[in-house]
């Protein structure tokens, strides 16, 4: 029986040789992302910006113009209305109200009064200024701490060069995710941060698999030039890398298409993260090792690897 192969067994794609192209592309990607973030900023959801959100379902198709008129008449500042999914599903966003937490509550009550009965409130969220501030900083700390912890772990398991290369690839993935969110104006909220952290975990997962092979090959081929050795390691793991990314994408696309509106931004971030994470592991993290003076000895592998290495022989 012939099995399906996404990638032929013996590829010799010169990834490391072409590294300049990848580095330029990645540098542009990161620079564009940072620029977009600085200039255009992110479309923060109420988690981080504070404010009020209603997800309502009207009887019959929603009359947006009428809704907008009656909501604007309340004088509650910026009101955004948007239908999604069905024509009778409307998402209403109000900006954070002046005057502390009580003012937000008063606004919620006013909107409910104006919309009147016959409206199904599917979701009501209100985040006050205090909490939105904390959630924002908690998100920043979480992403920062994750990157740091991963750096330390890889450093401990491999060598600092590997840790640094992995983290550069990781920051590349995180920044470009922020960039794509800014470019497309997608809502950036708590679940997006969760997605970014998962991307961090996933991208590192990919990188570690290739690095593991690099380490193994460093012990096996003592004479091979480093660039050739790195390229061999990438090609040897290429089949696995693409297969896993493919199955993960299969599941995520199912989630994106069928998982409903609430989770769509999250699935989008994950899909982007899997693609960019796979790319960065192969085309950024490993070629970067060339510039970081990886030592031939392969560092000080833990007892477990030594045993594993001996068992192979």
């Amino acid at each position, binding site marked *: 029986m012939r099995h399906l192969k996404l990638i032929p067994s013996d590829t010799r794609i010169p990834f490391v040789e072409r590294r300049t192209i990848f580095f330029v592309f990645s540098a542009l990607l990161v620079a564009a992302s940072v620029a977009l973030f600085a200039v255009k900023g992110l479309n923060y959801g109420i988690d981080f910006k504070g404010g009020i959100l209603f997800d309502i379902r009207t009887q019959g198709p929603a009359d947006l113009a009428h809704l907008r008129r009656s909501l604007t008449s309340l004088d509650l500042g910026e009101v955004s209305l948007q239908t999604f999914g069905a024509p009778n599903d409307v998402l209403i966003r109000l900006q954070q109200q002046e005057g502390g937490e009580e003012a937000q509550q008063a606004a919620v009550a006013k909107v409910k009064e104006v919309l009147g009965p016959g409206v199904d409130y*599917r979701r009501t969220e*209100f985040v006050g200024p205090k909490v939105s501030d904390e959630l924002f900083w908690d998100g920043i700390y979480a992403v920062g701490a994750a990157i740091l912890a991963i750096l330390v772990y890889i450093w401990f398991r491999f060598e600092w060069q590997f840790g640094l290369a992995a983290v550069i690839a990781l920051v590349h993935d995180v920044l470009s995710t922020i960039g794509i969110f800014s470019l497309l104006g997608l809502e950036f909220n708590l679940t997006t941060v*969760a997605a970014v952290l998962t991307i961090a975990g*996933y991208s590192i997962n990919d990188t570690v698999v290739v690095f593991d092979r690099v380490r193994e090959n460093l012990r096996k081929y003592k004479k091979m030039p480093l660039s050739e050795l790195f390229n061999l390691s990438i090609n040897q793991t290429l089949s696995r890398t693409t297969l896993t990314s493919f199955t993960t994408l299969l599941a995520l696309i199912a*989630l994106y298409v069928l998982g409903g509106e609430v*989770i769509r931004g999250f699935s989008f971030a994950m899909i982007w993260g899997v693609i960019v994470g796979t790319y960065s592991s192969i085309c950024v993290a490993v070629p970067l090792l060339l510039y970081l003076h990886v030592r031939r000895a392969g560092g000080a592998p833990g007892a477990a690897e030594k045993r594993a290495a001996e068992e192979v022989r």
Partner: protein
Amino acid sequence: MASSLVYFARWKVVLILAVCAAGAAFAAPNLLSAPEAQSLPSWLPNKQINLGLDLRGGSHLLLEVETDAVIRERLDTLVESMRTELRKARIHYRGLGVEGNAAVVTIKDSARAEEAKDLLRTLDPDTLAELGDGGKLTLTLTEKAIQERISSAVDQSIEIIRRRIDETGVREPTIQRQGTDRILVQLPGIDDPERIKRLIGKTAKMTFHLVDNNGSISEAMAGRVPPGAMLLPSIDETDSQGRPRMYLVEKRVMVSGENLVDAEPTFQQGEPVVSFRFDTVGGKRFGKATSNNVGRLMAIVLDGKVISAPRIREPILGGSGVITGRFTVAAAQDLALLLRAGALPAPLTILEERTVGPGLGADSIAAGKIASVVGLVLVVAFMVLAYGLFGVMADLALVANMVLIAGALSVLQATLTLPGIAGIVLTIGMAVDANVLIFEYIREEVRAGRTPISAIEAGFSRALTTIIDANVTTLIAAVLLYSFGSGPVRGFAVTLAIGIVTSVFTATMLTRLMVVSWLRRTRPQTLAV
């Protein structure tokens, strides 16, 4: 050659199968309806997965106790007793008031400052007395006292909120402290929390005062409030210009709501009223005060606003009475409820609200189910295409993995949220990774010309460290997500972490067991991986 990787000790086989069986047993109650699961005998696994509010529908409220008010109140009391003591001792002073966490006063006659210090320092044992320049005496509340006061105020608030919510008949509310001064309230099944918010939002401090009949309202409104009196607005009456009607009432409290033991909504002459009953102390005090003041007006004050000010027609000696006002039936019910549950030690602020209606929750579950099943089918089909028989084994492990996740969620009673479902779908995609790694190594070894047994052994052994390294990093991300995240995001971290652990188990143990059993039964000469 007899390595541990291709031969399993019998006890290991039993253990692996036992873990899978336990997972299935603990996951099984989820196939039943909720009442059916609850009726299972207690020796059987009977816990179902705990659904988060975003899936079952309900309201999540994050409240903050206004701790400043608690401290301020304590300092105000201290200031009042300082005033009394200084007057009694005939010590002249000025500038008596509150500054930050301290009560301050300046003693005019600096010769008597030390005497004043000794006199006042004992008033509140939790303060530190300090005498500064120019006879300025500062009584500062200690940090420990402040923390204790805040802590007890939060505990008390939790208790009062619980009583109020219980009275409304909400089932299974969760009310817990978060951080130092916050309270998290979760109300499953509540899609319009307005009434609860109204009930929680009231401090409900009720006091009875005599209406001042010496001063004039117009004088007081012009800023000349007579000593010992205060100007309070009516809760619902307005004057001709639409402003709230003002009452001038005595500061002195006749009786306070703390002495109430019961309150019920009822009707008097067809109007909704609230009847109440005092405890013995309150009843006596109320009886005495009403006996001495027949004919005067008595203001019933709730949270600084006058509900009504009826005339005392006769002494009320039975320890019970009625509060009249311009109530609707619902308002009378709510007031009675608040009085029964007691007053909050400090006002509460709602910092965050997230409410999901039952419709959206059900839709989310349905969408999550479809996405999971479709994702699972796609991955299962792909694995068979890519690896044939080995793919089937990986698929069996994947299904076992899903069962283990469901079992673990049920046993741990972790909350499954919508992002949590996303975590499961992600796990479906990533779980086969460990198997893919192993199979790729085996392919490689087969190509290098090894025999099936040694190729399989080498495959598992080489993949193991990679699998551990790769999964520990994802686990790090999951742990951080859990510690920094809140609510739904935590749910995601939990399923992600459980998924990582179970997928490593199924890939390195269960798949290996299947591969090894197959190997020993068929003894293949070549491997078609």
